[in-house]
């Protein structure tokens, strides 16, 4: 009896992510959900620009690689082109909460019937560790070398809280993948987000707190606890909007 094996939702390609980067776990959870829902054959994934730009090599479904920040708009087009396709975007914090803020807010406002997987690791990974909109106060990065000074560069963006004020948003949950229990919860949230789409309930977004050992300057193991001690404080886990659950 197989307890655990690789999902068919992922291709055979090896992931390019750094050792211990939890992007890989999030990829797997999305892939597992798509496989278990039996929708891989009608799923169109939209990759963004950042460490996860190569996700079009990893998800075992048709993919479109979008310009930085524009994945929700591309996904809007793809979904409107074939409404019975399952359309998702996979975006990092720079992509979704910096350059793509307008696309994020407005695809939510339109309650676009898509699923957004938002990976928040508080840094720009691909380009070598610069400050992101979600970089924590005092957090040192390549472009906040003395620690993020909120009096100078302002405060991190709390996406779930922000979008919870957007009426079009149907389901918003923040999860983390820094331990097995959290990973199980994260999968439930991702599954819920995809089911929402399949049931035509509009815009769903799952914000997944994730590690970046390389640019946090920590070992993969230390990064797990840093996330817990620092990110979970600033970004509390939980459901921030569940329009249809409230109705039940």
């Amino acid at each position, binding site marked *: 009896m197989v307890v655990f094996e690789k999902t068919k939702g992922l*291709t055979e390609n090896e992931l390019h992510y750094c050792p211990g980067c939890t992007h890989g776990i999030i990829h797997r959870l999305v892939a597992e959900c798509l496989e278990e829902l039996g929708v*891989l*054959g*009608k*799923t*169109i994934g*939209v990759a963004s620009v950042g460490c996860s*730009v190569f996700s*079009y090599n990893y998800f*075992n*479904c*048709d*993919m*479109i*690689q*979008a*310009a930085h920040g*524009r994945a929700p*708009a*591309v*996904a*809007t*087009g*793809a*979904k*409107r*082109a*074939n409404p019975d*396709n399952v359309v998702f975007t996979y975006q990092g914090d720079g992509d979704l909460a910096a350059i793509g803020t*307008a*696309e994020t*807010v*407005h695809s939510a406002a*339109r309650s676009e019937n898509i699923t957004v997987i938002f990976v928040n690791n508080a840094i720009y990974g691909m380009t070598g560790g610069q400050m992101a909109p979600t970089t924590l106060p005092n957090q040192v990065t390549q472009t906040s070398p003395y620690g993020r000074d909120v009096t100078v560069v302002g405060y991190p963006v709390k996406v779930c809280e922000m979008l919870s004020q957007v009426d079009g948003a149907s389901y918003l949950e923040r999860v983390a993948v820094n331990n097995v229990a959290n990973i199980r919860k994260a999968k439930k949230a991702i599954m819920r987000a995809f089911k929402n789409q399949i049931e035509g309930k509009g815009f769903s977004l799952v914000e997944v707190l994730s590690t970046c050992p390389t640019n946090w300057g920590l070992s993969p193991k230390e990064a797990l606890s840093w996330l817990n001690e620092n990110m979970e404080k600033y970004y509390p886990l939980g459901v921030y909007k569940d329009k249809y659950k409230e109705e039940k």
Partner: protein
Amino acid sequence: MADKVLMKGNEALAEAAIMAGCNYYFGYPITPQTEVAAYMSKRMPKIGGTFLQAESEIAAINMVIGVASCGKRCMTSSSSPGISLKSEGISYLAGCELPALIVNVQRGGPGLGGIQPSQSDYFQATKGGGHGDYKLITLAPASVQEMVDLTFKGFDLADKYRVPAMILADGTMGQMMEPVSLDKGVVNDYAKPWATTGTNNHEGRNVINSLSLSPAQLEEWNIGRYERYKIIERDEVMYEEYLMDDAEICVVAFGIASRICKNAITEARKKGIKVGMIRPITLFPFPKDALKEASKKVKSFLSVELNMGQMVDDVKLAIDCAKPVYFYGRTGGVLMTPDEVIAELEKIEKGEAKQW
């Protein structure tokens, strides 16, 4: 021939797009093209199509990328500043080898510029407004009828060669009303096995992508695309000749400027000036051969444009500077009058004009 209907350019173009099988339009308000969006918002719901006003021109072009990736005809329209915003998306359409139609109803620039007509986005359209090696099929209507006909043509060429195409109109084309026949033009159906329709619907996995970290592969993609541009340059050039048989001066003008020049030429002929015109209809592919041929007969060329001098460079290049090339332009939204063009022709005849 369907009987003629009096229509505004912007609306005639929108109706033509629908007749050409475009069921997806994403727009954003900007003068002088907003009627395209308004018209689409009325018509699309009636035909089961999709109209969406996006949060920005950037979002709109990216929605087009989403639809085009799924193999469906789609369009966006804007005016000059909005086209600047869409330029990255246009570069992505080229890089991803996606067909789509982009409409630019030009206004005065740069910056916020003005809202009167202009042709100052010629370079932006034909020399690449976005980054990277790519060409944009550029069609320049000179009448409301051509706003219809070139829309059919634009969709067809885009699908045929898997490239983005642009209708480069201007405020007059968009705003003026002219009788137009809405004959259903040619609507070819092109197979799109590459489209992201879901792996249920095709072999293997389709990925729409313009990224490659391998320089050799990126070069291969670029070279492959340029082979298609060569075929486009060989087979798809469109231009009109007017009174060129015995012409000694060849006027070169497109769009509304060519309409003004036609009046000027008719009057100048009465004054004994042997002048004709070559009107490019496709700005890419540019009618180089026609100009080269003309340079063997005429004494000089006069490029007349609504800008500070852009297409004139291409005229000189096309004829390898074989003959003198002059330029006359108004900009900022000012239209030249036929008399101004005639005055310029007279200066050329008297050898008083300064070469470009």
